């Protein structure tokens, strides 16, 4: 079982959560990234993720290992969509379980922050106007 996965189809949240269950854990934190209906004032109809999968999976698993080592949580998993998506589908889900809640919140936040900054994934938004545009992340690493 991989901790980080890319999928081309809708994420089954029940199955996902099942993987995080652990009787030693008192806390579970889940983050979902949803497709918003607007961005910078424009109405978004749907969107598309382009994923460079070999590196996204490698780097995604690295992020999860970092979070487990850094915050000492028990389990952590994430799934990210690729391809076309409709409004209010989950584009990404991150789940973290641990004995106590503090580290579960911190680890979940770390994973999604790092995923957004480091994974080779790009989002194209399709607007009501018929236009489509690649969305630029605000928090990316800077070139030398």
């Amino acid at each position, binding site marked *: 079982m991989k901790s980080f996965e890319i999928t081309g189809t809708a994420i089954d949240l029940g199955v996902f959560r099942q993987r995080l269950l652990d009787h030693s854990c008192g806390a579970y934190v889940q983050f979902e*990234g949803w497709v918003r209906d607007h961005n910078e004032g424009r109405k978004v109809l749907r969107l598309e*993720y*382009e994923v*460079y999968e*070999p*590196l*996204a999976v*490698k*780097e995604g698993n690295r992020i999860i290992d970092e979070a487990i080592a850094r915050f000492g949580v028990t389990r952590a998993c994430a799934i*990210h969509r690729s391809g076309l998506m409709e409004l209010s589908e989950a*584009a*990404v889900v991150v789940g973290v379980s641990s004995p106590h809640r503090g580290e579960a919140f911190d680890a979940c936040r770390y994973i*999604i922050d790092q*995923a*957004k*900054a*480091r*994974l*080779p*994934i*790009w*989002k*194209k938004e399709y607007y009501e106007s018929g236009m489509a545009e*690649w*969305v*630029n*992340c605000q928090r*990316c*690493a*800077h*070139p*030398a």
Partner: protein
Amino acid sequence: MKVRVRYFAAFREAVGMEAETIETSAETAGELFSECTGRHTGLGNFPSSLVAVNDEMAAWESSLNENDEVLFFPPVAGG
């Protein structure tokens, strides 16, 4: 030396191709990116781009070797 360059997402659309093999004297990934920016209008001026070499994320100052595959990533936007 010869390297393989791959363009993704907005870069691929700006350049109009997915990949090219080029002869370069660039010593680092950053120098190669500058070179490609010069070759293709529309590429570059992306302040938060990332680079990978042979399927590993890399620093812009990483040195290049013959036959490396260099991946240029426009600013990422997962989630």
